[in-house]
């Protein structure tokens, strides 16, 4: 499995740059950056990422709400969502995971391992899916 297309929803442009470079460092060339939840939905019309990296504290529509809507819409439901946020408390994490996110990573993150952490989450997810499919076939 390889990570090639990532959609980053993050309102802080400096952090956007750091995320893009840390992914580029590991060979992810297709990183699309948007600043708001609304832009995220618009961009998904023409871009299907392997994963959406989602901040929580953003103006207008926060990350939780964005995730909730993503999971509600049949067209976007299957796209894995990983939170990347400064909200580090247990209750925040639980809230994010309940909304159907694949993972919950916190800031500050380690730019050297960000790629591997996301990939590990995706692998775990696809292994689980295979298991489920296997069980359904049997």
């Amino acid at each position, binding site marked *: 499995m390889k990570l090639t297309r990532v959609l980053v929803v993050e309102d802080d442009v*400096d*952090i956007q740059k*750091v995320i893009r470079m840390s992914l580029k460092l590991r060979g992810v060339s297709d990183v699309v950056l948007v600043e708001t939840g609304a832009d995220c939905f618009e961009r998904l019309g023409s871009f299907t990422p392997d994963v959406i990296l989602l901040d929580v504290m953003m103006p207008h529509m926060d990350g939780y709400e964005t995730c909730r809507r993503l999971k509600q819409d049949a067209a976007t439901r299957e796209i894995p969502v990983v939170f990347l946020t*400064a909200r580090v408390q247990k*209750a925040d994490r639980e809230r994010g995971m309940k909304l159907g996110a694949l993972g919950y990573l916190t800031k*500050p*993150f380690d730019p050297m391992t960000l790629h591997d952490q996301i990939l590990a989450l995706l692998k775990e997810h696809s292994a689980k899916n295979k298991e489920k499919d296997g069980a359904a076939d049997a």
Partner: protein
Amino acid sequence: MMAERNILDSLGSGLLVLDARDRVSFVNRTLAEMLHISAEECVGRSAGEFAVLMSRFALPAALPRFDWPEAFGSRDIEWRDGETLRFFREDSAPLSAANAAQGGAGNGRVFAYHDVSHEKAVDRMKSEFISVASHELRTPMTSIKGSVDLILSGFAGETSPEMQELLEIAQKSCDRLVRLVNDILDLSKIEAGQLKLNLERLDVTEIAVRAICAVKPLADKTGVRLRVDRPLPLPIVEADPDRIEQAITNLVSNAVKFSPPNAEVVVELSSDNLWVQCAVCDQGVGIAEKDLHRIFGKFQQLSEGRRRGGTGLGLAITRGLIDEHRGSIWVESRVGEGSRFIFRLPIAAPPSPNTPALAGQAAKP
């Protein structure tokens, strides 16, 4: 006598006196009004019966028991009266001073109930402020750490040795800032009584092993060896695994920090009928007797502690975490020989499949 009663009735705080046989001998008007009954109706009741009256409003309702009669006690209780929720601090003291000569099993206790709702609200606001501040601080820290780490990785091109050294200083300081922000957030949650524990039935051995793995990279730097010593299997405790790991990690990283190179740090696990005990033992600098009481306070560092870096929050948090689990923590130490930081957690009641409702209740802190 009449005048004294008047004074006590006019007090803003509720007052309760239990006699030597644990019967109510006095209730002032404030407390009677809190309970919506007359003072006369309370007098003569046993402590158990009085707890039933309390249970209509108070949580926890039962009066605390004391293992030794001289003990002073203080705890916070919730007071729910219809729609309004208030908080009271219950202070209790032995009632023996006047006729101590009679000695024996004490002469009863006096309980005072102070309304601390306002303090609680302020604590909550303070804690909310700190959690917002901690989120806001994380954003710039993320870009600083990210940028510095990326440059140090060589991603942006060659750096001279001097640049490398300076960037490493920035990186180290940033990591320290992150830890500091995390610690302040934890401490504010503990102080506001807002720490939520995810209790599980667990064996502390596994947690101790995890904590040791977390500290190993630090220990390796000075060749300090880490070991868990558990001669006998441990009974199960009900605890939050992440929080207990945090407590043990704090103690072990202190032990490593204050040990000479190549020394040994041992986590000794044992138990008796009531407690599981965890002792983190080092052969380090030790702590003078006169300082033992203050190292658990926040921002308290001895001169050795300041010299070796840190902030002085580790032990304050550790104590808060253990207290939240209804455990206890203390330290034994000798200068130049080493220290033993010991904590105890109550053994969990055996799971009772017949009464799941009760088991669920017991799981709440």
